[in-house]
């Protein structure tokens, strides 16, 4: 009985979380590019 006998649903939460981290990173990089590296002022 290996780890893949685990029902697929139990991995989904981890995949959603991993996907969220990737999404956040991609967004952060995209926004950085959009503003040429730094947006200022309060």
């Amino acid at each position, binding site marked *: *009985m*290996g*780890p893949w*006998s*685990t*029902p697929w*649903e*139990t991995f*989904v*939460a*981890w*995949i*959603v*979380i991993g*996907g*969220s*981290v990737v*999404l*956040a*990173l991609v*967004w*952060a990089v995209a*926004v*950085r590019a959009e*503003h040429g590296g*730094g*947006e*200022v*002022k*309060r």
Partner: protein
Amino acid sequence: MSTSAIHILVLAVYMLALLVVGIVATRRTRTADDYHLGGRSVGSWVTALSYVAAYFSSVVIIGGGGFGYRYGMATLWIGGINVLVGCTLAWIVLGRRIRRFTERLGTMTVPGFLAERFRAPEARVLVSIVIALFLVIYNVSILKGMGNAFEVLMGIPYVAGVLLSGAIIILYVALGGYLAVVWTGFFQAWIIGVGLVLLTVAALKAVGGLTAANVALAQIDRGLVGTPGVWGWAGLVSYAMIVSFGVWGMPQMVVRFYSVKSVSVLRAGTVLATIGGSMAVLPYLDGAIARVLYPGLPTPDHAVPVLAKAVLSPWGSAVFLAGVIAAGMSTFAAVLIITSTAVVRDFVGGGLGRKLSNRAELRWSRIVSVVVGLVSLGVALKPPDLVLVLTAFSWAVIASTCLWPMLFGLYWKRATRWGAVASMVGGLSTALVWIALGSPFGLHGFIPGLAAGLVALVIVSLLTKRLPEDHLDRIWGTQR
């Protein structure tokens, strides 16, 4: 050293550290703006992790474990959706616009933003009343969760636990204001995270790994390892929506975006909040593991406390206990400051039109924090049952009122004053009526409240006069 001595030592060090942070924050709080929003000077780490700490209360840890125990692995979805919708997307969709718009409008509160954005003074009064009323109910459920944690994990009587933690929170919020809330929140997020990771590692070890847990759960009931499993889609989806999408309309959460130092802080903050928020999944997993190890508990809410006592060393369980208490304290503090701001700045200052001097406002904000805190404490000493239902109830009402006007206020220029007001009144009343009817069709009041609020906002906005173009240009920053 005995286990209870270790618990008391760790807890005492932790409480002392909170007071020190509170005192340092007090020295930085000189004006009413400092008190309510930390002078818009907060960086990405503190903003992101205090957001996470305000998000998860003791109720989520204990109650989430209870859900995992009852419904099994399908509840991990709730944790996943918490991260994606409640953290990542909330930051991406709301963060930058809220920071920019509130600065252009010169407003520092959620009721204030809605009033200025829609030129709707009635929105300020309505939302500040809803906040004051329903966040106090939420406060009570947080305190109750903490009191139960003290009782079950440490054997400290409920009343003593509630009074001790409540008094310390009221003290540091009243003195240090918003900065005390976010700094202690930052510190507490770490404790919550470490506590949950320790418990999860020990629980996985005790049960023999994730696969063994799944196999054993499937033997108890196949539904405990499937989706939607024994809970069913209606319950699972509506609960996940309330605790994830609902965050978008919760003032104590979105206010974090008002107070950041600059828009660029939100980039790193989004990543940090996502990573920090991922601990949301752990209580559900721990609860499911507890089902395997301790199948006959009298109530699912005992799952996580019993697990912690059994699988952790005395030092480990002391840290976990501090984490549970930290989760409750950080949320209570976040709610307390936002209620004080709503009452003093929006209801008295904006709604009743009483102009207070800076010093008077600072003094009154402190007094209101203490009064709201004491009222919550008083009610929590002899509270109604069903912690999680109560939390979901108050969340649902606030979110049904604020969510659409907030979101459409940021993204739809055609949204009008009366559209926003109709959405608030429609969302609030539908949610309340639905809950009073006993949640027909097994659907939580949040869903019909949200649907009514959306329809009302769109239809009434399209039927009423558009806001002046120069006002919208100023907010969107597109004027020539």
